[in-house]
């Protein structure tokens, strides 16, 4: 397959060139923040750093971190880098974790964000001949607006269905021959499930690629979606704090996401000591948005746990790749003192032949944490033989034990008993009152 890029001169630039761009932008950005964001300037002063100390990317470590707590404290205007008259848009997080983030954009910020999304679409094989259906939510959520803008930049015919109304989604995919689908992976799985129910096999579905992000999903879930719809499923990564989807995206190699390094400098730190870790280490991902004017995040702690690699990629892009985050440190459950990521549980379920329709219920009974993995029964996993169904259930318990290191209960639920999500799936119910 011929490799195509949206901005080849940047996406395939030699490493030295990227560092040069980053250094130049970082110096400028730190000055901008020092002059325009008193909240961050105070943080710099507290650490004894001034813009003069930042001469290249190598000095990045000297700067103070920003975290979700800072965003809360500075809400709504405390981190604004431009006067409101220069801002053209806000986007906001869902606030599912109780911490709503409001991010501001100038037209320049929107442009660079849409460029990033366009790079992702082209990396997934998109051209101006494609029909791109954006089934992410539109509105405050960044998913819809980001991919919509990227799709326009690539020149795709864009179908802005937003999320929901599943049968209408499928009607548009079929009737307008959509070739690229953008949505959350859990919604993609649900769309696939519904298509199968309607009698559509992979050959009846015109889609060739999917760009799925905004929540954690496993390799097994990718394979299942790819098989059901007959597509290639690509991961995309982003945070509202940094613009939205497109901070990083997967290429045809499908083994990690290229970070748009000309806009976002990535570091991996030890979440406890805050020390920068060498390449290849697992730790918390930290981003510095060097190009954003209105909401200039510097050393923003994402809480996502992952690794970075500079290994040469077969797609020809030179930007550093991040592995699929194994979880967010704030998604991470601590059960009986053990760290558990929902993605690990998903991997075990899919490996054992179940579908990704599950819920994780954590409770505390007699001062002991309980973990109940509730998964829907599937026709494939059901037999009339009680012993065999119990045997499969036991295998699942053993698989979870070996993956997580703790014992989990497995409950088999009736099909369709877990509410299907049109956006981010609710995977964890934590009933512990601590």
């Amino acid at each position: 397959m011929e490799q195509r890029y949206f901005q080849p001169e940047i996406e395939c630039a030699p490493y030295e060139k990227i560092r040069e761009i980053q250094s130049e932008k970082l110096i400028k950005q730190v000055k901008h923040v020092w002059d325009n964001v008193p909240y961050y300037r105070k943080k710099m002063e507290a650490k004894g750093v001034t813009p003069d100390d930042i001469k290249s990317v190598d000095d990045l470590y000297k700067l103070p971190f920003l975290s979700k707590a800072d965003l809360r404290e500075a809400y709504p205007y405390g981190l604004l880098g431009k006067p409101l008259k220069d801002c053209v848009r806000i986007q906001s997080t869902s606030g599912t974790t109780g911490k709503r983030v409001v991010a501001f954009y100038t037209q320049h910020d929107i442009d660079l964000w849409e460029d990033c999304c366009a790079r992702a679409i082209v990396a997934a094989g998109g051209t101006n001949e494609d029909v791109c259906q954006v089934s992410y939510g539109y509105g405050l959520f960044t998913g819809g607006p980001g991919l919509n803008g990227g799709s326009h930049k690539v020149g795709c015919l864009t179908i802005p269905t937003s999320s929901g109304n599943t049968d209408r989604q499928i009607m548009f995919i079929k009737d307008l021959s959509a070739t690229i689908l953008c949505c959350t992976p859990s919604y993609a799985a649900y769309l696939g499930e519904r298509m199968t129910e309607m009698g559509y096999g992979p050959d009846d579905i015109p889609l060739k690629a999917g760009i799925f992000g905004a929540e954690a999903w496993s390799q097994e879930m990718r394979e299942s979606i790819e098989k059901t719809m007959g597509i290639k499923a690509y991961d995309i990564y982003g945070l509202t704090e940094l613009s939205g989807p497109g901070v990083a995206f997967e290429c045809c190699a499908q083994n990690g996401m290229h970070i748009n390094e000309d806009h976002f400098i990535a570091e991996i730190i030890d979440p406890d000591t805050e020390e920068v870790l060498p390449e290849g280490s697992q730790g918390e991902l930290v981003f510095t948005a060097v190009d954003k004017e209105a909401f200039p995040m510097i050393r923003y702690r994402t809480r996502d746990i992952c690794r970075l690699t500079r290994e040469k990629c077969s797609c020809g892009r030179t930007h550093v790749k991040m592995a699929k985050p194994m979880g967010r440190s704030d998604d991470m459950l601590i059960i009986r003192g053990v760290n558990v990521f929902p993605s690990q549980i998903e991997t075990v379920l899919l490996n054992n032949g179940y579908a990704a329709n599950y819920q994780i219920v954590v409770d505390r009974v007699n001062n002991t944490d309980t973990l109940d993995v509730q998964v829907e029964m599937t026709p494939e996993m059901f037999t009339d033989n009680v012993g065999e169904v119990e045997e499969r259930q036991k295998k699942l318990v053993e698989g979870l034990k070996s993956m997580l290191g703790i014992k989990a209960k497995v409950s088999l639920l009736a099909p369709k008993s877990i509410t299907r999500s049109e956006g981010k799936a609710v995977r964890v119910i934590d009933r512990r009152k601590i």
Partner: protein
Amino acid sequence: MSVQQISVFLENKPGTLKKMTGVLAAHSIDMRATSLAETKDFGIARLIVDDALSAVNTLKENNFIASLTPVLAIEIPDEAGGLDKLLVVFDEAAVNIEYMYAFSGGKDANHAYMIFRVADTKAAEAKLTSKGVKILSQEDIANI
């Protein structure tokens, strides 16, 4: 001729069995026989109906997991020792029974009907038929 039994997965919580019977009632599906196998965590309802294929599809359309399992249906006299006599033949034929349930009634009050699940339905059928046991067909069930 074996009979198709419907096996339905039931989540272990109040109301699931009622949900299933509700679907059957709404579609006027008459159960000839039923039994419920339960474990700590889930149950399997087993049903014998006149038109198994259409009933299993109805259940699937209503989001139940249901499958068809071949079972042997055999008529015995409804009297003391009736089942024992039949099991003598099973014994002689060395047919192992995985599970069994019974129903009676229908037009003929003098008979009871046994449903047997065995590992190899075809082989068991051949052995039992050769020993003079009459295995009921799906039509026989519908005519009871």
